[in-house]
């Protein structure tokens, strides 16, 4: 399951989503608001999403991850809105029969999320604010009607 939420992310709730008695290994990744960025102290962080598209991309990400690894359960949630220091901005939980797969799948999911899901973050400093330098998502060429 995937979700985009403006509410505080509870890690307990995240882990409940991947409860399954048939899984041995669970890997959870949490992204949290850091108190510094390139040496500058950060006070808080705002996350903005293109909600409709982000949900589509999160669902694609889920499907892609499950295609590449034998995932039993996966839950991906991204937060939006204004976050305080230490709050969770993104959580990805993956349950697999074998821990090797759970690590690889979770790692893939967070790496890929950062390349594909339309979300933007802004850092608030004591003396101003700045959008975080992002990455340009890859775009498949429009298939020309060339056959």
């Amino acid at each position, binding site marked *: 399951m995937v979700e985009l939420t403006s509410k505080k992310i509870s890690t307990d709730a995240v882990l409940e989503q991947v409860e399954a008695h048939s899984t041995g290994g669970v890997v959870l990744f949490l992204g949290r608001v850091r108190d510094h960025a390139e040496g500058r102290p950060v006070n808080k962080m705002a996350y903005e999403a293109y909600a409709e598209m982000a949900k589509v991309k999160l669902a694609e990400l889920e499907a892609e991850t499950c295609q590449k690894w034998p995932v039993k359960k996966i839950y991906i949630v991204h937060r939006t809105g204004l976050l305080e220091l230490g709050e969770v901005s993104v959580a990805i939980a993956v349950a697999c029969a074998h821990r090797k797969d759970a690590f690889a799948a979770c790692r893939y999911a967070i790496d890929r999320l*950062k*390349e594909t899901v339309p*979300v*933007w973050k802004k850092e608030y400093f004591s003396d101003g604010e700045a959008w*975080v330098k*992002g990455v340009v998502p890859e775009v498949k060429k429009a298939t020309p009607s060339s056959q």
Partner: protein
Amino acid sequence: MKIKLRFFGQLKELTGTEEAEIQIKENTRVEDLIWLLGERYPNIREFLNHVSFSIDNEYASKDTVLADNNEVGLLPPISGG
């Protein structure tokens, strides 16, 4: 023909706009739209080179031809996670 524009991040701040409608001619490609946008929103001109475009929730290349009622997103480099 008309399309709906969606602005995000810095582009939303610079245009002061979340959504807008714009009239386009038939066979307008994303690349052509960029010029229309530069004309209509002068203060985002310098950013348009780094903007990605989406059409109806899918990233679109610059040679994609727009269709009536498309929702087109103007997406600065993404920084989720």
